[in-house]
């Protein structure tokens, strides 16, 4: 039953120009995320949009990953590399979860699998109860590289996802305008990406994902390419944006302080192949600001996570020495 539904939905999205209108209405009974509707229509209030539906019946977790295995095959030698090995992860509605781990441990692979960009060799991924087989309007990705389309203006880039879904131009523009304000790009709407700084490009990248109003927002080291100060500013802004939108977020990063600052829960990956070493709940108060960094708990949490990663890395190192 679920499978049939998923397939038809997926097909609809690919096939019809007017495809799935706002995500969340896509044929499922009212779901938690339909609480996003007032947000889309109205201006941002000081308080997050109320979500009566989600309180009533959060039927399925927003993300359910079970036994995920991702393997790459070398195109020349045929050799197999396991990038992710047996990951289980569940993310509830409105939760901000971050995966941390060393470079090359399979974070991007994991995120891309959730995005539907690569196929896992084993395991299952479901977003709001729907099995993931390919990209869909219920998810939006913010890539590590901004990869804005250079021939589209800032506004054109933000509306890109909506244009693909056949949202009428006027409506797409209107929706995009709100996110222009949210990511503080007012005045730059008609600039081409080439004229923007790295930080501004990354804001457009973020707005391009947010405007599609996904169930699940996927962030792949969104600030890794930025200089330290810009990165801190962007982290503060992301906190602010999250306070206003309360999106369900899966982020991956190798920056532990970033993970602790932003998340409700931090998932620690081992070195390649990525497995979950630990899950750490971050109980820093919400709504959070960048000042949370000066909390005494903040240092404790970062040290703890750092310890887990180093411990597993060193264990591996001594192992190989012994062999």
């Amino acid at each position: 039953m679920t499978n049939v539904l998923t397939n038809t939905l997926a097909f609809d999205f690919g096939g019809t120009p007017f495809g799935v209108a706002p995500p969340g209405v896509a044929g499922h009974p009212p779901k938690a995320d339909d609480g996003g509707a007032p947000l889309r229509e109205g201006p941002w209030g000081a308080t997050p949009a109320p979500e009566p539906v989600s309180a009533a019946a959060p039927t399925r977790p927003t993300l359910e990953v079970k036994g995920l295995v991702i393997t790459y095959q070398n195109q020349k030698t045929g050799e197999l590399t396991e990038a992710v090995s047996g990951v289980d992860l569940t993310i509830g509605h409105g939760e901000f979860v971050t995966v941390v781990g060393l470079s090359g441990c399979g974070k991007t692979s994991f995120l891309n699998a959730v995005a539907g960009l690569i196929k896992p060799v084993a395991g299952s991924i479901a977003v709001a109860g729907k099995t993931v087989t390919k990209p869909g309007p219920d998810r939006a990705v913010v890539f590590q590289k901004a990869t804005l389309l250079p021939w589209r203006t800032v506004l054109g880039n933000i509306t890109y996802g909506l244009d693909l879904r056949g949202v009428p131009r006027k409506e797409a523009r209107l929706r995009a305008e709100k996110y222009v304000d949210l990511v503080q790009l007012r005045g730059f709407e008609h600039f081409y990406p080439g004229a923007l700084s790295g930080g501004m490009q990354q804001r457009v990248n973020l707005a391009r994902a947010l405007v599609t109003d996904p169930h699940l927002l996927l962030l792949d080291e969104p600030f890794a390419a930025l200089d330290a100060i810009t990165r801190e500013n962007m982290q503060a802004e992301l906190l602010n944006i999250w306070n206003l939108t309360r999106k369900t977020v899966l982020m991956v990063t190798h920056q532990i302080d970033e993970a602790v600052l932003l998340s409700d829960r931090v998932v620690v990956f081992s070195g390649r192949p990525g497995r979950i070493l630990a899950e750490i709940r971050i109980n820093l108060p919400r709504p959070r600001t960048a000042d949370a960094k000066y909390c005494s708990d903040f240092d404790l949490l970062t040290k703890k996570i750092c310890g887990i990663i180093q411990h597993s890395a060193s264990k591996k190192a001594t192992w190989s020495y012994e062999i």
Partner: protein
Amino acid sequence: MKYDLYDFRTRKLLESLIGLAMSVGVIIALLVLWEVSADLNLIDPMFSSSPSRVVTTGLEMIADGTLWKHIKASGRVFLAGFGLAVLFGVPIGVALGWFKWVNRAFTPLVSAFYTMPRIALMPLFIIWFGLGDAARIALVVLSAIFPLIVNMQVAMQNIDGDYRKVGIAYGATQWQLFWTIALPSSVPFLLTGLRLAMGRGLLGVVAAEIFGGAEGVGYMLQYAGATFQIDVVFVLVVVIMSFGVIFDRSLFWISRRVESWKIAEA
């Protein structure tokens, strides 16, 4: 601040004016040298003409309408041939680059034609299409089409994987990927293709008319050469050169406009 900007602009303007003056200066110097050597009989005017004689002959040809008649005839052939080359070349190149199996199947054929001197096919075209415009148009098409095909093919094969990934992540269908990613990113290649095709097309017109026919710049060039009208030959050389430069500059200008996104603001 304002004055600085003003200064900057003035300097830039001055620089480009000096550049222009120098390039014009070189041409004028050569023309003067030519004129003087002809006047002093250092070179035989019978074979080498002179700038003043070229100008007089040119004006005469304009006045009696012969020049215009031939330019019109050549222009007709060129426009038809170039238009057809764009009409067919662009989609063919796109198909070759976009569909892997089409690429595999047709690339050897395309390469074979690409490297072959097109004028060698003119006798065939005359047999197939007769001595009228059709054979000449065919040669222009065949001359101009390959740069377009090859450039569009390369464009399709060089689509940035990251842009493609963005398209796919946001749910683009193949068709949408083509329209929103492949086509816009192929514009620089298209413009290069058009520029090359223009040059080749021009070459094709002249070559076809020299080969056979009763009007057109190439025909007249051939006729004037055969009858030792050196002045007329030079007038026509100047005409052909001017068209080449005008086409090339205008396409260059267009590509600068179109690719403004590469540098800055709308």
